[in-house]
């Protein structure tokens, strides 16, 4: 089981966390277009390489954070980028 580098707890089993998804910035809801908004809702980059991801440390510190993972080789870039950045909206 992959160890996820939680910036607060330290390395933890994947099963202790939840992958929230690709970090995607949330369009301004009062000014957005259907095109833009639905890209934000549905479209993925889904590369086989490095991706910025938001993780939730469900069983540990309860914190959301952003890190980079290589989705092809399934390993993390250390160290993690720290707490979740504000651009990453819930999906």
């Amino acid at each position, binding site marked *: 089981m992959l160890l996820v580098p939680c910036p*607060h707890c330290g390395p933890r089993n994947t099963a202790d966390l939840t992958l929230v998804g690709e970090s995607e910035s949330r369009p301004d809801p009062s000014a957005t277009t259907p095109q833009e908004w639905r890209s934000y809702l549905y479209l993925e980059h889904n590369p086989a390489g490095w991706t910025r991801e938001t993780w939730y440390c469900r069983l540990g510190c*309860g914190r959301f954070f952003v890190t980079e993972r290589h989705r092809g080789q399934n390993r993390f870039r250390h160290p993690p980028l720290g707490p979740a950045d504000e651009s990453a909206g819930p999906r």
Partner: protein
Amino acid sequence: MDEQLEFAGPLAGAGEANGEGWSLRDESRTPKLLVYEDFEPDGAVERQLGVGFGASAAGGSGLLVCGIRPGEWLLLLGERSGANPPAVGAVTVDLTHGVAMFRLSGPRARDVLASVCSIDTSEEMFPDGAVCGASVARVACTLVRDDVAGERSYLILSQRSSGRYLFDAVRDAGAR
């Protein structure tokens, strides 16, 4: 906590189970206060409480301060102590009734835990005073190493409603 009224714990029967080299006790009555960091964090709360995330420290009269999450502390006010907690933090919430708390003690306590929890409880990785969030028998718990008189001892805290299931699961694990 009102002493006139009878406090109903999470368990039905005996609040205690014992096995070879371990014992499990219900300490859910223990008053528990959740304290949050100030809204503009300046580390004052941590300085005052003496510990940060991942650690615990015994205060006076049976008070145990546990850093359960970054910027969040759970204050356990020992059963006897009428200790009034330090008035710190932005927000304080009484979780006495919402959280079940069991104490797993004894030389074999570590082995019992090893069959229901994936946390490395070696001396180096989980020393006395250590605090972490972990799954115990698939229940989200806070685990505190709180040795008593030099004897290996763990506090296992979970949401109250899972308490009875959790107690039974840990007891069964010990019964193997």
